[in-house]
């Protein structure tokens, strides 16, 4: 019953070129690390069903190209995202400096309840680190973001980051902050009706 899910959450992954956005996505959807990940052209997407509070939730994740020349194209995809993962590379300070510009885009183009998570990727290369955890953590705090360091290579924290974001979104739905039926929420309620108990009962009678 892999197709059975009550909600679809739309995610978007943004950040500079080469920070490992596509690798994060692949690590999350396929539990694999792609060693030779080609540059993303335009926008690609992946899905995975997760479980939060006994609810099956399908994450529909849009992975955008980080190259500046695609920026105009990728901007069209922010609309209606329930979650945004903003990724930088902890070994390249430059990518951290560009976060402000990504954040501006994310804030301007998504809705106010969109959960934005800051992700410092390439934790496996921590010895080449150029951005300290504390500094990024401060940046996240100042901007009201959830912050986490991950490694798409080893898979460390990858699952956690996606699930934590989804949990926040789900909490927002539960508490009524977010109306899952409104289009801009980035959430679709799709009840796939399968009631095996009912079926069995009926078949029992007719045989």
């Amino acid at each position: 019953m892999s197709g059975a899910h009550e909600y679809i959450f739309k995610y978007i992954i943004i950040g500079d070129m080469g920070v490992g956005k596509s690798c994060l996505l692949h690590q999350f959807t396929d539990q694999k690390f792609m060693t030779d990940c080609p540059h993303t052209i335009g926008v690609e997407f992946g899905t995975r069903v997760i479980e939060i509070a006994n609810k099956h939730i399908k994450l529909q994740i849009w992975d955008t190209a980080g190259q500046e020349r695609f920026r105009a194209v990728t901007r069209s995809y922010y609309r209606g995202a329930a979650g945004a993962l903003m990724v930088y590379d902890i070994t390249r300070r430059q990518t951290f400096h560009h976060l402000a510009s990504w954040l501006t885009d994310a804030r301007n183009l998504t809705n106010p309840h969109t959960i934005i998570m800051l992700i410092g990727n390439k934790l496996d290369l921590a010895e080449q680190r150029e951005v300290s955890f504390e500094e990024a953590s401060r940046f996240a705090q100042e901007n009201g973001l959830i912050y986490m360091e991950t490694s798409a290579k080893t898979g460390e924290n990858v699952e956690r980051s996606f699930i934590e974001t989804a949990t926040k979104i789900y909490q927002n739905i539960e508490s009524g902050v977010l109306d899952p039926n409104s289009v801009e929420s980035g959430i679709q309620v799709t009840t796939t009706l399968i009631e095996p108990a009912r079926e069995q009962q009926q078949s029992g009678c007719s045989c």
Partner: protein
Amino acid sequence: MVNQRNQRPLLTLDTKQKINENGGGSSPSTTAPQNSIITRKVHQVVSISSSLAENDSLRNALQYLGTFYGENTVDERRNLRGVLESKTLDTHKELLREFTKVNERLELLDNVVGDLSKACSLIDEQMRQHESVTKSFLVQYNNTQQKLSDSQHRQKLISTFLTQFQLTDAERDALLYHPITQTFFRTLNKVHDIKNACTDMLRTHQQKSGLEIMEEMSGYQDTAYERLSRWTQEKCRLLSSDVYQDSYADEHDEHLYGHLLVEQELKNALNALSGRPVLLRCCLKEIVSARKTALVSKFFDALHGGRRRPIEMAAHDPVRYIGDILAWIHQSAASERELVDSLLSNDESEPGTPTSSSSSSLQSYSFGVLDETFQVLNAHLKDKIDQILNGERVDMIVYFRLGHLMELYRFTIGKLLGMNSSLPCYLSELRSMVDHCFYDVLQKQQVVVSLTLNLKPPNDMVDLMHKLTDILNTLNQSMVPQESREQEFSNIISAVVDPILSNLSSTITSQENISDMYVFIVNCHALLHNTLSPYDFATKKSEVVMAETDKIMEQFISFQSDQLLTNVGIKQILDLIKNNQKPLSAVDGLKPEQMSLFMQSLYVHLFSTSTLLLSPQQQCDKISSTRLKVYSKNRITTALSDAYAQVYACIQDLENQYDNAKEIAFRTPQQVKILLE
């Protein structure tokens, strides 16, 4: 009872006898002494009394005697025998009476027993008769018993056969009348299995029944499939229900999306129908039409809906507008794809899923369904493009960007819907339409490049080059592969750059002030070169332009040098040197005194270089490229110093017999060169 009656008299008799014996013993008192008699009597009494205590019968006898024996008188004693005998007689009489009664009873009993015996023999007789009759029945019974067990066995076989080759009433009802549930699919599956089994049956000698059952099952199948198809079509029609419901009623202007139910039954139904492609196609048509409805209403909702940022808000910026629309389509394509894939998945593990081989092809329909569904957006997309194309004057770069946007999405959406599906193909159609507009405008942009006063490229051309830069930037940033990028580039070049180049080269011959012309052309070329050189795909063309520039530069330099040498007069000298035999000092025009005069005036010219080189340098200064400017200046001075070196060498040559060569040309070429530089 008889015994009890008899006992008493018997006992009485015994007692009497004893008494008699005792009485007999006491009578002879005369024959024995008195003492001994008395002793004997006492003894007798004692023994009697002791025996009385022990003997019940004697005591009973004496008690009985007591009932009628009164005073112990002589009379009484004498009469006792008689009394006793009469009593005995009475007793016997009574006994006789009683026995007579017993005898009567016994006779009665004898009669009864006799009757019984008769009856028994009668029964025996009858039994014997019946036995002979029943014997045949027994045989019959045994036969029947055998037949029964045979029948039971056959019944078992038949019921097994029936469960395997026939439907139960409940199953038939489920298949033909009841609402569609998992039972329906299980039964449908069974019908399918039965038909398969019948095929096997046709190989045995049960062909006839095989055919009959097959026919029956086919009948069921046909009806069931038709029912299923109707049911499925109805269900499919409901798939259009994830459209928003009445947004205007909601004060917050929020759009509610209905829940899209994809029931397991519907999946099973589509799976089952894959055995009947004709019916399946009808259902797929319903899906397509339902999804079309849903898609269009979602499309318009995304465009105009009262959301925070409807796409229509970007309508003033055509590239952003169409980009947003295409991004929306891309995202919808992803969602639609998931929906259709989940509908048309052949999940064999599900119960009641027919395992017909054709079901594996169910997924192959998904591209078709998506293709047809998204066709509905073609017209809307065209509307939007037309709006832009027919709207206010649009900058041609917009056309170009739109074209590239379409190319990007043709690829992106094509990955989801299939590259050959309608929408991506339509996008490439739209692209060629937009491209057509682009090239149309581009061609009109052509400038007639005519000589300007300041020899710089005309403003028209500068504008055009700005636009070209925009275009080339877009091209550079587009995702089209290098080859097609080069192809596109060559198209643009042939529309923009080539006309300019040919225009420029044609002006060279027609112009009188050729020097200006050269500078002008070089400047135009430099602009072209600067515009093209940053781009990888333009390398070839910019090299061509570069070569052309070099050619023109050569012409310009040689023209300028020629002019300079002529003005100075050195050119004529050189001509004479070249055309005459040694000794040259004898040639008219090269005579020592003439040469001396010429050299003196030359030195004057050289020392006032500013006047000498003014005209060519001014010309060179009009070259906009600093590199070319310096280069041309150097080349011209070098030409002059080279010419001087030739003349100097000629004068110094002894064979030319200039007597005072040192005086005629007292500056070495080295000195002149330094002077010029």
